[in-house]
């Protein structure tokens, strides 16, 4: 474990240095990033101020779910961004060779090789929205809620990673799977809102097939006192464990089928 942390730090530091190598690009990126996040928040408040009540959910409850949804998404985004590139380029060009030639778990190396600083923006926006909503909602926040909240966010991040891992691993057979990964990832957007506004099919699909509901709506509903602890937190952990095991098994099968690329 200590070795993992040391290697992760080292590889991330190298990646940060790489980003800093291209200073102009980095600074422009940074400025653009704050603009985008700023506009994003402004837009959200504008929209929500016009919808005071959504299917029995108050404005601040909706805001809370929306903010909560950002947190697991941001954590996953920060660490596993390389899965996008795996699905788009790394396998088809044979660049995956290098991940198999080092004495490290290839998935760990893939994650450690790159991080996505944009994720900090999502994280900040998420925390801002959650805190704003909490100050307006009179919820009971005890130790169980705080611990449950942290666990649910982490488990939610694992669910994100697992779903991405499943669709990115398809590239071992399809060579490129970025489009299908994109479609799957976009479905997460449905779960930022109170899901009672959708019909049954969408609910079942997002709960059992591609379970993004567990990354936002379901655990957030528990904190809002509308779901049980068992469903909001324990089920979230269960789904995370099952999907990660499945994703990792598919990834391992993919490694065996990897065909590299000719010279």
């Amino acid at each position: 474990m200590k070795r993992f942390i040391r290697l992760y730090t080292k590889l991330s530091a190298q990646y940060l240095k790489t980003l800093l190598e291209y200073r102009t690009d980095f600074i422009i990126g940074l400025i653009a990033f704050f603009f985008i996040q700023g506009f994003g928040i402004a837009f959200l408040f504008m929209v929500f101020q016009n919808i005071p009540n959504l299917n029995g959910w108050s404005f601040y409850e909706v805001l809370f779910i929306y903010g909560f949804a950002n947190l697991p998404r941001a954590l996953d985004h920060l660490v596993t961004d390389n899965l996008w590139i795996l699905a788009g380029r790394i396998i088809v060009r044979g660049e995956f060779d290098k991940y198999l030639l080092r004495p490290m778990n290839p998935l760990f190396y893939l994650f450690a090789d790159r991080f996505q600083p944009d994720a900090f923006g999502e994280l900040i926006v998420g925390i801002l929205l959650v805190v704003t909503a909490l100050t307006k909602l009179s919820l009971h926040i005890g130790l169980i809620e705080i611990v449950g909240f942290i666990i649910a966010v982490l488990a939610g991040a694992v669910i994100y990673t697992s779903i991405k891992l499943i669709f990115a691993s398809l590239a071992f057979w399809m060579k490129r799977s970025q489009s299908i990964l994109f479609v799957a990832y976009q479905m997460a957007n449905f779960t930022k809102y109170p899901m009672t506004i959708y019909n049954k099919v969408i609910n079942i699909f997002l709960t059992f097939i591609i379970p993004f509901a567990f990354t936002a709506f379901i655990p957030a509903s528990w904190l809002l006192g509308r779901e049980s602890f068992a469903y909001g937190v324990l089920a979230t952990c269960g789904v995370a464990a099952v999907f990660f095991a499945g994703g990792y098994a598919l990834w391992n099968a993919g490694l065996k089928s990897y065909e590299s690329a000719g010279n």
Partner: protein
Amino acid sequence: MIEVRDIIKDFSSVKRQPGLMGSIKTLFSREYTHKRAVDHMSFSVDRGEVVGYIGPNGAGKSTTIKMMTGILVPTSGNIQVDGITPYEQRQKNAMNIGVVFGQRTQLWWDLPVRETFSILKEIYNVNDADYKKRMSFLGEVLELEPFLATPVRSLSLGQRMRADLAAAMIHNPKVLYLDEPTIGLDVVVKENVRQAIKQLNAEFNTTVILTTHDLSDIEELCKRIIIIDNGRKVYDGTLAEIKSRFGTMRRLELKVKNPYAFKAEPLRAKYGLSGDELSCEVVDGQLNIELDRNRIGIQEVINEVLAKTELVDMSLFETKIEEIIKKIYRNEVNME
């Protein structure tokens, strides 16, 4: 050190049709073509050997190396490298091997060369004393010092190759795989890289497996060569053996009035020679004759030429090893 036993590697791909309509059809068809890249390959390599692994493009060289390094899983057969099956215990195997792909660098592209070494030190858990010792040795042999602070993307090809070699050696691997390490280099840099490989092998007793298209690499570095074609092994032995078997081959290059007047067949029939032992071709109006000196005298051949046409100029060469190996590729000579 390395045991390769009866390995086969098949690649399957969806059958593609030409053109845009073809591409659309391909999208819905499930017709596969199977290509056998490596076909019942077996060999073993001892510790400290330097083996040249050669063959024409697409012969299966890289595929074999990728299986030995653990990147690819063989369709059938078995490989052991220092007692480890590389594609099953990748991480354990990775500690034992160093890999250089001539066409693709393994250095951190955007960072100074020095950074790559510091990160590899962490990855391979090299202790400070060993790291210092190896860095100073590699730095000297490969002359790294002048460009350690240069970002990899700004290196010349020769510098990059030297840095890649050093990066593959920093954990003192037991086996070094070099896939076309001299590709694209000029003559002087090529010579540097070869000298470095020689010294590394001598210093650390590293086993080296080398693929190349440049046979002077082989002549200088490898006692033993394995030649493959179409995924099959066609020769496994010493370079000296090839030389002694074909060392009596000579090449006559003749400028004559009418190069087409001479024909090899009558002489072959007269002396009972095979196509290997006497052949001729006309290149740019010049008559080139290859002959086995043990089977037919040079004088007989020249007499025959003089009887047919008028001689302007001539030179005599030992057949180059490259020519011989090309013939082996083309199955023009029998290796049994």
